């Protein structure tokens, strides 16, 4: 483990099996530690178990064996310390963009006035100051995910869990959103666990890339490059090849 301090998130021998015992496990004895304020990418093909691992860290799904600890405490369910952003639009369609962010802020224990202030601040942060009154259905996919990020941040969580948040966006918007996320992350330091199936996305974002395959961790790569990263940086491309080859 590269981090010297006690890890923020510890995944300890986590296994997960859906259905009966004869079924193949989705996760098998996964061990992982994430340092405070670290940006960790879980990378793998569809069905490799990365989303299940994220849901277990979130406390949305219980592990079959093993446990997840946050700050040394066993995770037993979802909590305010962990904000989550989903792949599909998970905004509440009956609330305005601002209302959605306020919802998160209210859940973190703020009163109405305080939540309103936080919502304005966060909408500003994600570049949607003028779109607060719009309903999610009136926003583009990229804007919806910005609101979703703002809503997750409104909980003031220490951990941000992101499940392929840009997976449904077009490539161009996706690149914009990666830059946007790094900008937001640099102003609000959080421990981030980011699930993706894009090697380039993982390389653009992560401090570390955890490559998953067949329900366990296949490899862990330290990226160690300054951000913002150039996509044509030879070191980055070399790592891309290493990861790509490791996946076969």
């Amino acid at each position, binding site marked *: 483990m590269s981090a010297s301090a006690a890890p923020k998130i510890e995944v300890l021998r986590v296994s997960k099996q859906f259905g009966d015992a004869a079924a193949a496990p989705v996760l098998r004895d996964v061990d992982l530690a994430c340092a405070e304020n670290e940006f960790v990418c879980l990378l793998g093909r569809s069905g490799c178990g990365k989303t299940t691992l994220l849901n277990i860290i979130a406390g949305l799904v219980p592990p079959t064996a093993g446990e997840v600890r946050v700050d040394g405490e066993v995770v037993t369910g979802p909590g305010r310390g962990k904000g*989550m952003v989903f792949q599909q639009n998970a905004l509440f*369609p009956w609330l305005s963009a601002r209302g959605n962010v306020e919802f998160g802020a209210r859940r973190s224990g703020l009163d109405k006035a305080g939540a309103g202030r936080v919502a304005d601040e966060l909408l500003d942060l994600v570049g949607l100051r003028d779109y607060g009154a719009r309903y999610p259905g009136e926003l583009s996919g990229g804007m919806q995910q910005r609101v979703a990020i703002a809503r997750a941040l409104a909980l003031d969580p220490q951990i941000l869990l992101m499940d392929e948040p840009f997976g449904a966006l077009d490539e161009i918007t996706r690149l914009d959103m990666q830059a946007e996320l790094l900008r937001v992350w640099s102003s609000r330091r959080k421990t981030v666990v980011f699930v993706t199936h894009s090697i380039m996305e993982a390389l653009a974002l992560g401090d570390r890339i955890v490559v998953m395959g067949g329900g366990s961790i296949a490899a862990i790569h330290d990226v160690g490059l300054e951000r913002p990263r150039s996509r044509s940086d030879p070191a980055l491309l070399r790592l891309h090849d290493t990861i790509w080859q490791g996946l076969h």
Partner: protein
Amino acid sequence: MGAAATRHAAVLQGAGFIVSLLLLWELASALGWLRPHSFPPPSRIAQGAWELAVRGFPEGVRVWTHTLVTLRRIFSGFALAMLAAIPLGLLIGRSPTLDALTNPVITFARSVATLSLLPLVIVWFGTGELSKTLLIAYGCFWVMLSNVIAGVKYVDPVLVRAARTMDTPGREIFTHIVLPAALPRIFAGARTALGVGFMVIVGAEMIGTIEGLGALIMEARTFYRTDVTIVGMMLLGVMGVLFALGMEALERRLLPWHRGLSEVRR
């Protein structure tokens, strides 16, 4: 403003189409292509309408009475159905056990044509107002119930998961997530149920009353007054359209977000 202009143009177009159909109809009657007794021309129907408005049919029961009585019956039945179906539907929609238990009963009851219950309802509750209200309520109830259940049951699970990640307590997940998410479906159910009410009323008014549009239509049949039958039909149709528009306006007002959503998806 652009949308309003488009709307006006659409209304004008629709009105123009209807007027030309009526003219064609009148012409067909004047040229002897249609027999005036079976297919009374618009002018004959207008006379019938005038008679209904001034003298009434049967004499003394004027068109306003028929309309108001019918509306009152539809509304009391509809309201009764809403009062019963909404809480019950919310309850069943939340509980998979109750849902599995009641599903066959609901499918069965929905399949029974409401008017086939008419003889039974007369035996149980007589031929008075109660029977008519109950028949309409029965028709509205099952449609509404299945829509409320579906509304609650098929809430997008990702919304519930999102709320859970924000540590929302179960009770609030129901009131703040499931309920608003189910509202469009509940509204659709109410609209359909009201439509059912308009269908059932004619049958329900076939017995024990001379008031109401259904009674008017039956009475006109007895006297071969096809013109009066058509007036009654048209009044029901116009009322149906007006109420559908009213419900739409109400939905736009109460669920502004949903309109935006459907427009984007279109």
